[in-house]
């Protein structure tokens, strides 16, 4: 590849060596090179949030982040939130509340809400709503998603 670059990324705690195009987005690197397909390509314009990942612990649009610019930070995708044996508490709460319809927005929602719960363990419903405003659910299934987090928070120790 002419003009390609070799970079080292830290994804879900693992060091990954990659040869990338100079303007390649993190979303392309994750999906097409690393075969981590939880982050979805929805609009590719940063609007829908389906591609959300954590970069240095902060929620970010993978479609608006260039891979070559991500080498200084740890990247977490939905694949890194759980183990093959156990879902994360948030994932379990989403399943229990039936907070998934078509499922396309779900990985982005999980990333956004994981970051919210990292920041504050007991968010109010209003804070959950504000957080979820970063992600579009075109099934308009927001209520169950908000319920899932609210119920999880209510039953978790203060």
């Amino acid at each position, binding site marked *: 590849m002419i*003009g390609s*670059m070799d970079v080292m990324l830290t994804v879900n705690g693992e060091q990954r060596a990659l040869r990338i195009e*100079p*303007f390649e*987005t993190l979303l392309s690197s994750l999906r097409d090179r690393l075969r981590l397909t939880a982050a979805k390509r929805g609009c*590719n*314009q*940063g609007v829908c*949030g389906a591609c*959300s990942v954590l970069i240095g612990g*902060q*929620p*970010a*649009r993978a*479609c*608006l*982040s*260039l891979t*070559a*610019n991500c080498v*200084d930070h740890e990247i977490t995708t939905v694949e890194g939130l759980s183990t093959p044996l156990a879902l994360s508490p948030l994932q379990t709460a989403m399943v229990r509340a039936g907070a998934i319809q078509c499922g396309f927005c779900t990985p982005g929602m999980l990333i*956004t809400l994981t970051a919210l719960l990292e920041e504050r363990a007991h968010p109010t419903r209003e804070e959950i709503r*504000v*957080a979820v*405003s*970063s*992600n579009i659910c075109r099934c308009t299934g927001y209520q169950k998603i908000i319920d899932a987090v609210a119920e999880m928070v209510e039953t978790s120790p203060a």
Partner: protein
Amino acid sequence: MLYRPQSLGEAVGLLTSDPNARPLAGGVSLVAMLNARLIEPSALVSLARVAELHGIVTLADNALRIGAMTRHRQVAELSELIRPRAVLRQAAAAIANPTIRGMGTIGGSVALSDPAADYPAALVAMSASIEIAGSSGSRCLAAADFFLDWYTTALAPGELVTAVHLPPPADGAGVYHKLARVAGDYAIVSVALTIETAGKICAVIGACGPRPVWLETANAELARGNVAAAGDLLAAASDPLDDSRASASYRRRVIPRMLARAFAEAKALVRAL
């Protein structure tokens, strides 16, 4: 090629030597344009590692320097942004959604100069200035002289926005009102208003023309309490588009009403001081 310079001098050097290179800040607009194939830069110069563009400091004259790489989220949470300066905090909080506010930067937004964005009107209303670096050194330009046209600023080729300077704190109030279809959308109309107890008043309309709209005559009417007259002057001076968000005539009708609301709120805040 994507360059990741460590210093401002190195970044300016890269941008000066290649007129088709573009500076990359948060990427929110630039990478979206790349994805849509609207731009084809020869190189990108990432500003992530340029220390001079990061941080928020109070300068010797009590002006506040907000580094160009400061995210909207940080601006929306800045405790220094009270009284007239609150207009900028409110504008930052009104941008897009929490994730985008964590990515986008004040320098990137200012340099893009999208008239429907939230910062331009707020910066003009608070008499902020834009710090710019180029191959011949650094300069500061009033925000009112920086935003020139649709996506056009006073930046010369190879120049870079390095910070925004806010004037020293003053008594008074600042408000930013945004009319949008849903929270986080671009504004149909926005109003940025500052009132200083010492007498200075500045009202600026956003999203209604190629650049923020303000008039000395409208500010003078506001100082005399003639809100309706000020609103009519600003509506007449605006040059809004018909687009999917609203018609131009609707925007012109809304300007005086939004100004009246913002003025009433700011006046009440000043009285409560």
